[in-house]
């Protein structure tokens, strides 16, 4: 069964198209890297799927039903820079926000919610930091808190926007092992990713994107020099490096 189906999605800001008629389907239980140059619309694609930016056209289905009906199946990790980390709150509290969709209006998080949030912090190796004010965390730790919050959503399909940007080596390792764990549980994870060097190592599927969908499929078949050339256009110096990457692996 396809976990995510995107049909003909177009997004435009002030008439300038950002995404054009993007359609694809993703099978269940895959780790999918969304790859493309700067300004290719990678983040916008995720936001359009989640309804955070208005779509000019198109539909999104999660397990065969429209996204709006399946909201609880979806977890989201926004870019770390999208919030003010000086906000007066601690790590546990941020993770608890992942439960809000389940708790419902007016009610406060229950003891069970707190326990669940703690277990999510533990999974990202941040249990000892539960009561730490969020501005006191390093960039990597902040990213892990965001990840734990997505885990607290207890979702089946996850969307992550650049989780590897600006994190330390330890966090990168932690994130990758977590992604693999999610995959092993049959969950689907779509990750906006920048670093071409690690694509083959991290993802079993890739979606190559540059305003339009260039290609999607298993990494060995799809992450080819030809497709990369189509995705990155005339950026030649860059391409030579990619050549080396593709050959070396």
């Amino acid at each position, binding site marked *: 069964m396809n976990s995510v189906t995107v049909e003909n999605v177009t997004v435009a800001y002030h008439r300038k198209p950002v995404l054009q008629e993007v359609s694809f389907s993703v099978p269940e239980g895959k780790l999918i890297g969304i790859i493309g140059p700067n300004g290719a619309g990678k983040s916008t694609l995720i936001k359009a799927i989640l309804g955070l930016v208005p779509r000019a056209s198109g539909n999104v289905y999660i397990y065969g039903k429209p996204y709006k009906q399946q909201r609880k199946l979806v977890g989201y990790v926004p870019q770390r820079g999208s919030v003010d980390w000086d906000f007066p709150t601690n790590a546990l509290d941020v993770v608890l926000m992942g439960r809000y969709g389940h708790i419902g209006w007016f009610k406060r998080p229950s003891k069970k919610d707190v326990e669940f949030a703690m277990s999510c912090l533990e999974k990202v190796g941040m249990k000892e930091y539960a009561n730490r004010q969020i501005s006191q965390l390093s960039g990597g730790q902040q990213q892990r808190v965001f990840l734990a919050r997505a885990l607290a959503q207890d979702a089946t399909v996850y969307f992550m926007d650049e989780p590897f940007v600006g994190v*330390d080596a330890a966090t990168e390792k932690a994130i990758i092992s977590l992604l693999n764990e999610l995959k092993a549980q049959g969950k689907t994870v779509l990750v906006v990713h920048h670093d071409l060097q690690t694509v083959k190592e991290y993802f079993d599927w890739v979606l190559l994107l540059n305003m339009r969908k260039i290609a999607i499929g298993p990494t060995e078949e799809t992450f080819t020099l030809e497709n990369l050339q189509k995705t990155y256009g005339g950026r030649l110096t860059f391409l030579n490096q990619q050549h080396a990457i593709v050959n070396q692996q």
Partner: protein
Amino acid sequence: MSETLVSIWTDANTQWVLIGTLLLGLASGLIGSFALLKKQSLIGDAMAHAALPGICIAFLIHGAKSMSWFIIGAALSGLLATFFIEKIIKLSRIKEDTSIGLVLSVFFGFGIVLLTYINHQSKGNQSGIDDFIFGQAASLVGADVKLISAVAVLLIIITVLLFKELKLLTFDPQFAQGIGLPTGLLNGLLMTLIVGVVVIGLQAVGVILMSAMLITPAIAARYWTERLDHMVIIAGAIGAFSGVFGTLLSTTTKGMPTGPLIIVAATIIFLISMVFAPKRGLLVKAIHQSRLRKQVAREQVLQTLYDFTEQEYVQYKVGNGFHEQQIMKKRPISISMLQKVLSSLEKEELVRRTGDALWCLTEKGLTEAYHITLRNRLMEVYLMNEMTYAHFNIRQDQSMDLLQLPEKVLTELKQLLKQYGREPLVLPEKMNAGKRSYHRYASIGGK
């Protein structure tokens, strides 16, 4: 004075006024916290100033003073102003701050024109409409105060009930939208809460200072806590206290407007918070900074002396100690700081004076300096091989003490240190297994 004080506590109307300003302050602090964190402080200011023409027009239409008419007029013109602010941003290249400034001053200017017109009319000065500029709590009568109190209580209840949702909306609106919260609606609600508290505060605090009533308690509270729920409570308390304080002072002093007194009280609390707050206060930060500077200087001086000692040691030389200028050349540090550090090290018996501006490490000082040097050089090696040791999370903590690593890793790192030729060579007595001992290279000979 004492008579007036007695009359305050016995006069029913004054009691109501006090309750009203207390609730108003409480609501301002609560809602102001969200406005502040959502970076919408200026919006409150715009609302308050823009309310003036609405109040004047309400007076002109109704022909007399009426709290409910004023509230309606103020709310309508406040909302109209927000509408203009947003339209200007959308339809031109003008940014939000400019747009707010523009609309605020145009509305306020128009309000002043209307106000002057009203004052020149026959009913003139009796209108009491001047009170809206700086606020006059004493001019409130029973029915008004009850209305203000009721609205304040309603605003407080809404804020408390929707605390969780407002918090998420303020911290991470995208995530809030992602989990299906109606963020558009909640934003509108928050805006309505801000308008609400501004409008009911206008007569007591005045249009000019109402935004300070909203923001000052919140920003003062932020200094004392790292939790939103506590911040909201503290801000509410500061608001309530300032409200009561300002009202009391203005009713006992003839002709004193309430608004400025309330704001003076809130501002004093803010200043105290800014300087003396336990974690974020300026004083604590300054103390931390100077302590840190001293500690860094101390370590650097010890390490520099160690480096010099090591150089001598391997060359089988004993000099006359090391000169202050020599230290300063290697580590940029001011002469006064260096001398301060050296004399405090001397007191700790870590260094010894060997001549004019000449210094060397004592045996105890060598031990200390050895550990500092070892730690720093291990860090160099660690950074060169970070990927291999990433799982130890060393850089995750502020206290990156490599000597606390598990024995096995430490040995590995020390091995690397040897390979790179960076291991500290002069060992403290205890660790010195039969090699040349430090004490100034004891019997130097024995090549």
